């Protein structure tokens, strides 16, 4: 990461970003620095190639999916606003904030976090995690040495467990129900992104 810190005024649309994502100015500045550090050619945009250059992501089973989540459908470049929008999902949830009607759902709410996670499962964006999609994720996560039969088994079992309306796929509501106990707000929060 670069040693110099950007001045807040150098960041385009700082106020809108802070409003939209809920980040503090310090966090936005920090993420902007990171954005610029990743953007090696100083294009002002990040390409997939830039993100793939992060070593640890390459060994992450979900690395590619995570990278793809930063880019819109069909596009190959992302600007800082979109970059930080994705990261906004991982801001810790503030306690005690009541859900005022009329205000848009904050980006780091439980619902949004779940939607983000769901979207990583559901690659074809049909609103359901089919058996194949589950299988793909499992295949990513468990590596080579497990046989397909076992994986198919597990995938089917997973879907059975979660599937309440019997359509053989997991819808978003079913997904949300099955992770109820997992304390998603805590799991999907990074402390540094205040």
């Amino acid at each position, binding site marked *: 990461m670069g040693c110099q810190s950007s001045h807040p005024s150098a960041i385009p649309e700082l106020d809108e970003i802070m409003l939209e994502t809920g980040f503090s100015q310090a966090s936005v500045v920090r993420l902007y620095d990171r954005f610029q550090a990743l953007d090696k050619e100083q294009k002002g945009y990040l390409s997939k190639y830039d993100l793939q250059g992060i070593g640890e992501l390459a060994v992450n089973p979900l690395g590619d999916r995570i990278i793809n989540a930063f880019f819109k459908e069909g596009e190959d470049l992302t600007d800082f606003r979109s970059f930080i929008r994705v990261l906004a999902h991982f801001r810790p949830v503030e306690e005690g904030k009541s859900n005022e009607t009329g205000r848009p759902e904050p980006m780091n709410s439980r619902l949004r976090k779940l939607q983000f996670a769901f979207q990583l499962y559901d690659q074809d964006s049909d609103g359901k995690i089919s058996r194949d999609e589950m299988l793909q*994720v499992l*295949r990513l996560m468990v590596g*080579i040495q497990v046989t397909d039969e076992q994986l198919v088994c597990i995938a089917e079992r997973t879907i059975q467990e979660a599937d*309440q309306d019997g359509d053989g796929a997991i819808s978003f509501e079913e997904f949300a129900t099955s992770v109820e106990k*997992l304390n998603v707000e805590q799991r999907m929060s990074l402390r540094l992104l205040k």
Partner: protein
Amino acid sequence: GEDWSGLVVALSPPPLPSRSLVLCSALLGMLPLLHSHGLQSDPVMASEPPHHYPAVISGNEPGDITAAPLGVSQEISPLPNHSSPGHAKNRKAFPVLGIDYTHVRIPFEISLWILLACLMKLGFHVIPSVSSIVPESCLLIVVGLLVGGLIKGVGESPPILRSDIFFLFLLPPIILDAGYFLPLRQFTENLGTILIFAVVGTLWNAFFLGGLMYAVCQISGTGLNDIGLLANLLFGSIISAVDPVAVLAVFEEIHINELLHILVFGESLLNDAVTVVLYHLFEEFANFEQVTVTDIILGFLSFFVVSLGGVFVGVIYGVIAAFTSRFTSHIRVIEPLFVFLYSYMAYLSAELFHLSGIMALIASGVVMRPYVEANISHKSHTTIKYFLKMWSSVSETLIFIFLGVSTVAGRHYWNWTFIISTLIFCLIARVLGVLGLTWFINKFRIVKLTPKDQFIIAYGGLRGAIAFSLGYLLDYEHFGMRDMFLTAIITVIFFTVFVQGMTIRPLVDLLAVKKKQETKRSINEEIHTQFLDHLLTGIEDICGHYGHHHWKDKLNRFNKKYVKKCLIAGERSKEPQLIAFYHKMEMKQAIELVESGGLGKIPSAISTVSMQNINPKALPVKRILPALSKDKEEEIRKILRNNLQKTRQRLRSYNRHTLVADPYEEAWNQMLLRRQKARQLEQKINNYLTVPAHKLDSPTMSRARIGSDPLAYEPKSDSGNLPIITVDPASPQSPESVDLVNEELKGTSCLPPSPEEDEEGLVMRVKDPSSPGTDDVFTPGAGDSPSNQRIMRCLSDPGPQPEPEEGEPFIPKGK
């Protein structure tokens, strides 16, 4: 000889009204002798006082733990009025019946005490009404009080809980049980919080209390003026430590949510290091006239040495234990013993060097567990679990009973001012400490601690037997007010255990604190947890932040790459956690199905294709499955039949050799091919299956027949030294049929070895149902028609070439 005559009277058959009275008086007669058994006859304990604390026991026993047991034993030999030979000048008749109590005294007394403890436990559960209001620990203390009172009433002096017995024998099982089954995930997630509570909280308590008590002592008129600052600080450090035994005993029954449980319990475990250091420190300083800065710095250093040293010792022993367990596949019966012995050795070794034995014990349990569990058999695992629970349960019971007895037995010095102020300041210190620390900690926590949580944490700070034993170890020369200290300690213990222990449950209900979730994790949760872990690690990497996930991921990678290879036997080191979890669940279900002998819910037809390989019962019976309609018998058979063919086909065409480079696509194509062929064979199979179906009278038996038909893939080679699971599908007899390692079958495989195959992990073989209801679990599959009927269960399939995971593209090429 008084003791002895008392005993004799109790033993001779008196005309007593009821048997229970005989038992009681026999008990009482024995008990006075317990206190004399320590130093004289047990060389181990005499020669190795706990080095943890300065050996002040030997010279300074108070009168009631008599230092003259030898005298007693000498008196015993010439029995006053029984048949043992006296000074026989004249020849007497050969003694047909004689009593030689000395011979068995020690084991006898110990067994008697333990028996008493167990009977008490039994009694409480037989009378449920009392135990729902009063926690067990309170009842046990009351029992101890009664027994102590009885003994005293008889005229004997009741035994006191000796510190070395406590620290060497009674405490380790409890701590090992706690450490081995520590919920590691929650523990590490909250480690920062726990450490702050344990270290800073205990320090705060000790100094606050010690300082205030010193101030109280300075008040003229209380008669306490001679108690110095150091003595008070020592007292503060003894009484300030939250006791794991008491916390466990009380929290276990209230089923509080895991976060609070792990916070209070973790604190009680980790504060041992602080307590040790402070205790030593102040005890040493009490000898000096003045305390220099150097001493303070050294004390500070010693804290790190004690705690980290203890952990280090524990880790070493844990690693050795894990490594040993790698080779125990041939001698399964002593596997549990390794776990216990290594852990105990870790404890003793740490005590040897004045390090924190508790932390050593916990560290060794935590470190050895994942590897040992991967290596040992299922039965050994069960054995370890039950033995640990049994020992810790008995230990706990004994501790509380002895606490009660010691209260009656000890010499007390009651000073109203001191004791009442101790009590009050203890509570205040705890509350203030928790509040202050939580305010500080909440700045760093994602999930903040609510005031309700804080209240429970403060309220759950129970004191227990450790404080008592530590106080007991003080010697009279330097601490003349020891009796008063002991009385104060006991008062605080009683107060916390009784008052707080009894009221915590209604308070928990009143405050509607979240309770523990009773249901186990589903496979969904397991998968999603891992998924989220990976996701968060990725996001952390994108942010360039080396956070919690990053280090955890690194540790996992290190673990997988190097450590597991060393410490886990054979191919099981490659098994990913998810699969292990899945297998565990399937195994559990299989056992449940066998035990219930009944048909559970039937999954939809598509899903049982591969189920057959792994679970010959092929019927997930979990209640957690969404509601599926119960099929009738015929439909069941039809479904199973359909699924059966597919897998049978697989048996013929599947070949592991084809799984190269791109397993996903290959296997996918193969599966399609298989399905195609399966449809063709449907008729043939139908005919085969309907025939025997008529003979069978129950769905269980028909399932047994069907379920055991050839399934899964080509059986792999038996390299001869692999453990084999033999499964008796759906036999209603017993879970033993789902027997894990069966070494006897190793050599009996009649499969052609396939040399290219890597060696297998566990393989599973289904018993050949040559006739319905065969009980012989151990018959190797002898080849019934249409083909060899065997199920191979591969717990880990390394594939033809075990390639390093890192270099692999993780996305399958074909989508």
